[in-house]
């Protein structure tokens, strides 16, 4: 399956103009002098063909199939289906549970993306200070990122359990009761968000850290000499330099957050009272548990279109705000 991870590249820094790679300068022309077009096309095919073929077969073809399914009333497992046009779409938009699913999705996504960025940047700033033990701390903080979502969900079940969990015991020790994480939708969603952040923030921090270390120290110092306080210098000097990294992280963490599944599956199965049912989880539940494959495909298509729209907005935003 097309995996999507929260990993981002080494932050954007210097860099060539994307449309004109340096190698395609005059020297590049010289390289290709004796090549006939078909030969270089064949070469291109050899290099890029396998990847593209795999994507067409295992991603784009199923995507189109899924668009077709979304127009059907089809119980998964059945050999036959009925054409219902846009019926599945109108059904989703008029379903009384839809506003709740949208709300859960928006809250979860905003909290994990924005929360992850803020926490990740704070951690990165902390790890960037000249303190002893930051090397070790850096490793520990990133470690949860490499764990399986299923395993993470299972281990946190026992942390949050109001009766037998360590969190409840700690709250009790300071005289507080444990919130009803598993029975109150208002607490279940924050719980899922915390676990997601626990698993994924370390990576955001790592990327930010890499970007911060590329900021020359004298820039910090220059800002401080100007009499600016640490916060002002951070806001005026460092933050703008992190712009490209922030953009990249916002795109990639958004994509992975909207598609997250296994923590919810391991901890709440979308409950209680559908309080942790995101659109992605609903797609899974309708497709496999309820078995309404057509309806599930329609929701998946809606989610795909939303992702497309967000990305388009992102593109516009970036085109307007050129950093160099």
């Amino acid at each position: 399956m097309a995996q999507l991870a929260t990993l981002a590249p080494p932050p954007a820094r210097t860099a060539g103009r994307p449309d004109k790679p340096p190698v395609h300068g005059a020297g590049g022309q010289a390289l290709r002098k004796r090549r006939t077009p078909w030969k270089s096309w064949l070469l291109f095919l050899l290099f890029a063909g396998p990847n593209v073929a795999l994507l067409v077969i295992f991603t784009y073809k199923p995507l189109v199939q899924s668009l077709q399914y979304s127009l059907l009333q089809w119980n998964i497992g059945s050999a036959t289906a009925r054409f219902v046009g846009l019926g599945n779409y109108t059904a989703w938009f008029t379903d009384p549970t839809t506003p709740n699913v949208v709300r859960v999705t928006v809250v979860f996504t905003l909290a994990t993306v924005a929360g992850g960025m803020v926490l990740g940047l704070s951690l990165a700033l902390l790890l960037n200070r000249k303190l002893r033990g930051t090397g070790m701390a850096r490793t520990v903080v990133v470690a949860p990122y490499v764990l399986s979502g299923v395993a993470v969900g299972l281990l946190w079940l026992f942390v949050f359990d109001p009766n037998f969990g360590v969190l409840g015991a700690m709250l009790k020790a300071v005289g507080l009761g444990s919130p009803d994480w598993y029975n109150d939708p208002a607490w279940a969603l924050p719980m899922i968000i915390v676990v997601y952040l626990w698993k994924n923030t370390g990576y955001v921090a790592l990327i930010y850290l890499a970007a911060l270390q590329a900021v020359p120290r004298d820039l910090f110092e220059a800002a401080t000499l100007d009499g600016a306080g640490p916060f002002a210098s951070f806001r005026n000097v460092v933050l703008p330099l992190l712009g490209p990294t922030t953009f990249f992280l916002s795109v990639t963490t958004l994509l992975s957050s909207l598609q997250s599944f296994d923590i919810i599956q391991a901890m709440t199965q979308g409950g209680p009272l559908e309080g942790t049912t995101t659109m992605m989880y609903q797609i899974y539940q309708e497709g496999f548990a309820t078995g309404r494959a057509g309806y599930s495909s329609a929701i998946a298509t809606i989610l795909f279109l939303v992702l497309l729209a967000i990305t388009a907005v992102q593109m516009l935003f970036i085109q307007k705000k050129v950093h160099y």
Partner: protein
Amino acid sequence: MTSSPFASLNRRQLLQLAALLGGAGALAACGGPAVGQAGGAATDKATDWTAVTPAKEITWWSNHPGTSKDIETELIKRFTAESGIKVNLVTAGANYDEVAQKFQAASGSSNVPDLVIASDVWWFRYMINGQILPLDQLAKHLEFGTEDFNTTLFNDYEFTGSHWAVPYARSTPLFYYNKAVWEKAGLPDRAPKTWAEFDEWAPKIKGAGVMPLGLGKGTSWSAWWFCNMLWGAGGAYSKEWAMTLDTPEAVEAAKYLQKIIYTDKTAAVTAKDQVADFGAGITGCTIASTGSLSGLLGTAKFELGTGFLPEGADGPACPTGGTGLAIPAGKAPEQQLAAAMFLKFLTNAENTAYFSSNTGYMPVRTSALEGETMKAVYAKTPQFRTAVDQLAGTRVQDWGRVFVPNGDKDLTTALEKIMLQQGDPAEAFAVASASITKSYEENVLPYL
């Protein structure tokens, strides 16, 4: 350098991409369901089973209910020794839902088994999808002796006059109580006969320092044990396909549930697992599956008591659950016949008792109940006797819960609103009924 993966594309390229997607559509035309053709269940067509030679090898998809892999392997060994037919046991998932996911995804592919786990909420969907075979002809041909099956357990799989599965690992809810707590509260050593009696006893149990009753939640669970309160009050989820949750009896049952949770505070909904809470001594009694009995016996630090589910105003009421076994349609008759022979072997009196004694599921045949194997079990764990005795009074599930794809899920949501948020029962039930009716009309009715 730009920071978005997509930033370097212009509008023309996006259009090209869209065009290519259209092209992939042509590629995608093959596979998937046939649109517009008549669908529905397989028919009990007159295969002349006497002319069929059974296959030499079959595949069985199981999730090994009750960690029964060793038991299943042993039964297979005995069957192969007797018949010469080889059975490949496949772990098709950790639970019924995972097996169902896989079975439905496999539909139409070459990867369909010859025998498959079919739980109480799944077999009907297999049936309307045309995935499984009606078994009556085969059972007659092989002389299953179906009249010896426990009537409720067998008729759970009946629809339009045919039986679509055979009971295998079957359970019922059971009332569990903590004998130490009972003693402290000065109660007789038995389960309360009625919910009214529970209400009398509950303050005493509370006086013994524990929450009296722990209730389970979550899909495939809450709406299952609530059958007891609902039916006991004279209500039902549905009558055939018509939802009946708007009756005063149904609302009454939900109000009783709210009364013990919110007014009397003699019952609490568990955070995760009511069996674990009860086993740890947090609650005085609970309703859990008979399948939990051996686990509780192994871990509870107190003496464990079991009893029938309390009766309501309308008398006793107990549903059944667990899983049966079904034979996929669309396989060769040779495979189907061999699978049916294995099915008969697996569920005969001797083997159902063997399976039961090792897992804690109910023996599915009446003649097995008083056999040697079961008698030895009762002698060792008298608590199991209660579970088996309760079987006689069980009732077939309401269609609205188990036959409609999202039935159990919608009912669970309604019950969680009632139990966790003190929501208005009539309103919560109305929402669930509307959704289930709609789903019936869209996902079930066209296939009947």
